[in-house]
């Protein structure tokens, strides 16, 4: 399954996994990540989980209109952020990826400002919650239309290739997105061009309520890469280090001119599709309980504890610290002024067109 660290074999039948449920390193090569980075990865996973829980509370208290929980996806998302070069490479994420953009360095204040539709949102509170965007960090602004960000991701990668910038694109999406025409159009074009792009499918086997088996007749998503002329890797998406090493290899292969890859991270969605969904209609508590046994946080925590890098005390301290940070941000946001009404009319075009100026004037007086 794994030849060596820098050469995973594509079209593997069993998902690539590097740490066991008990947190033991099982790979035939040494883990060369520094202790600090390993700890950071776990801390970001934990922060992402707590962020998710905080989002749900904010939604229930009326401060957010919508949440698409990412709990269960943390390993894949945090790994992706570590696999790319921050500020050089570009991310084209989807709406369940706040764990990823947070780990890439998107400031918490920006994230919370976006999801609460605050005046402090860098995107001027134009989008519903769960749509990351950062010009500074090269995070392409999110779009709700499923898979519609994948063709632009490929376009950016083609631009990187023809201008020889040495950059790479990583774009992520769920399993449902792979049924969209845009997925096919984009990955097909990337294959034909040998564009430096990594496609990351966070496959939680549910598109809202629709089971993976109704999404495709293929045995998995990774195998589809074959038809597009690129390697496809099946990865245990609950194993942050497996996700990291595979994605990192794909990113660096892309940078080296070896073309695109498709990585399928097999994750679990612990929450409902969104705050507007009731998943008890289509899956049982027992099923969910079983999934949670494979919690990516538990596995990474055990791994760190086995190495003597983490303890119950560290866990409690970090939780306290991050929850305090959340609260401080929420307090700051509570003091922000309302989003100005006139912002509705800005940024449709570089310069406001006369008819929009007229409508603005009519409306605001």
């Amino acid at each position, binding site marked *: 399954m794994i030849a060596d660290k820098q050469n995973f074999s594509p079209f593997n039948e069993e998902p690539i996994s590097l740490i066991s449920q008990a947190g033991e390193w099982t790979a035939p090569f040494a883990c060369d990540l520094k202790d600090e980075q390993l700890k950071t990865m776990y801390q970001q996973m934990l922060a992402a989980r707590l962020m998710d829980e905080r989002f749900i509370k904010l939604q229930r208290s009326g401060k957010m209109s919508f949440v698409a929980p990412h709990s269960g996806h943390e390993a894949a998302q945090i790994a992706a952020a570590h696999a790319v070069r921050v500020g050089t490479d570009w991310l084209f994420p989807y709406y369940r990826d706040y764990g990823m953009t947070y780990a890439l360095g998107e400031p918490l204040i920006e994230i919370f400002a976006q999801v609460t539709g605050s005046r402090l949102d860098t995107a001027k509170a134009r989008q519903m919650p769960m749509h990351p965007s950062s010009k500074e960090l090269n995070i392409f602004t999110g*779009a709700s239309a499923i898979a519609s960000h994948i063709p*632009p991701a490929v376009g950016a*990668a083609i631009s*990187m290739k023809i201008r020889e910038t040495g950059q790479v694109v990583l774009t992520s999406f769920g399993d449902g997105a792979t049924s969209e025409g845009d997925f096919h159009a984009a990955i097909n*074009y990337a294959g034909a061009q040998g564009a430096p792009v990594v496609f990351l499918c966070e496959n939680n086997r549910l598109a809202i309520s629709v089971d993976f088996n109704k999404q495709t007749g293929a045995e998995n998503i990774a195998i589809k890469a074959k038809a597009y002329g690129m390697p496809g890797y099946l990865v245990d998406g609950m194993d942050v280090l497996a996700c990291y090493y595979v994605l990192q290899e794909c990113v660096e292969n892309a940078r080296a001119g070896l073309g695109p890859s498709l990585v399928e991270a097999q994750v679990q969605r612990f929450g409902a599709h969104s705050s507007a969904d009731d998943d008890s209609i289509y899956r049982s508590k027992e099923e969910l309980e079983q999934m949670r046994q494979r919690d990516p946080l538990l596995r990474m925590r055990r791994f760190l504890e086995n190495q003597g890098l983490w303890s119950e005390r560290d866990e409690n301290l970090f939780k306290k610290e991050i929850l305090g940070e959340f609260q401080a941000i929420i307090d700051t946001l509570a003091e922000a002024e309302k989003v100005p009404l006139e912002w509705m009319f800005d*940024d449709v*075009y570089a310069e406001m*067109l006369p*008819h929009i100026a007229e409508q603005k004037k009519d409306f605001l007086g």
Partner: protein
Amino acid sequence: MQTIVQTVARTLAEEMQRDERVVVMGEDVGKRGGVFLATEGLFDKFGPDRVMDTPLSEAAIIGAAVGMAVHGLRPVAEIQFADYVFPGFDQLVSQAAKLRYRSGGTFNAPMVVRMPAGGGVKGGHHHSQNPETHFVHTPGLKVVYPSTPSDTKGLLKTAIRDEDPVVFMEPKRLYRAIKEEVPDDPDFTVPLGKAKIRQTGDDLVLISYGGSMAETAKAAEELAKQQISAEVIDLRSLMPWDKETVLERVARLGRVVLVSESPYTLNFMSEVSACICEEILDSLLAPPLRVTGFDTPYPYAQDREYLPGPNRILRAVQKVLEY
């Protein structure tokens, strides 16, 4: 002297020469030079990295253009026929059009999507349509539809230099029908949103754009023979459109006929007509009349009859004059 389609190719070459970020992409735009030869000679001059043959996928073409534009290129994408834009329509509507707005102005997509449009070429319903209403109805897109070689040059240059996505519709039945001298100046531009008065007149105003300008001009010639003097306005640009000129000229004469070959219901001229009625009703001597295509798919056998030809325009003029 050059045709519209020659002007497209020459203008693209000039813009690619001027700005190395300008790239051309689409189906058959490379060695083939485009099925209409609108990109003729570009591949030999600028090579495969700047004149890119793409897969047969409008979603890939328009979507990738968005990504290229965001990353710093200035892509000019060709959709082989406007009728085939729909697989890429979501990329225009959900991605290109909303990018600046949804990112709070931090991202933008300076790109042009060119597409030959319009009927009268025996193309049936999948090679004849005029989908401009879809684009005009999508805030964030600009829409241009020239009718002459010179305007094609000036507007295409402006579109390529614009910071927002521009849908550039080309009147394909006029591609080779008109020849004229085109200004040599490599910086000759025509602003978006400025109409052109093709002919001044005293009895009524005829307004049109794109391919229908040809039939409108013919109708004006016929009217001249009958001693009826029509003012002829070419809108050239639909988003933004030159409301100021239209209202001023229509208010002066009080009578207007609006000609456009796309279907009647929600034809772009419905918008022009509504603005005229809302804003200068008191100046009107007759209701504005639209002469358009029909609310049917574009037919094959009745290819010419579907178009708002000179006779239909003349009948409308008569009604407006006799009102």
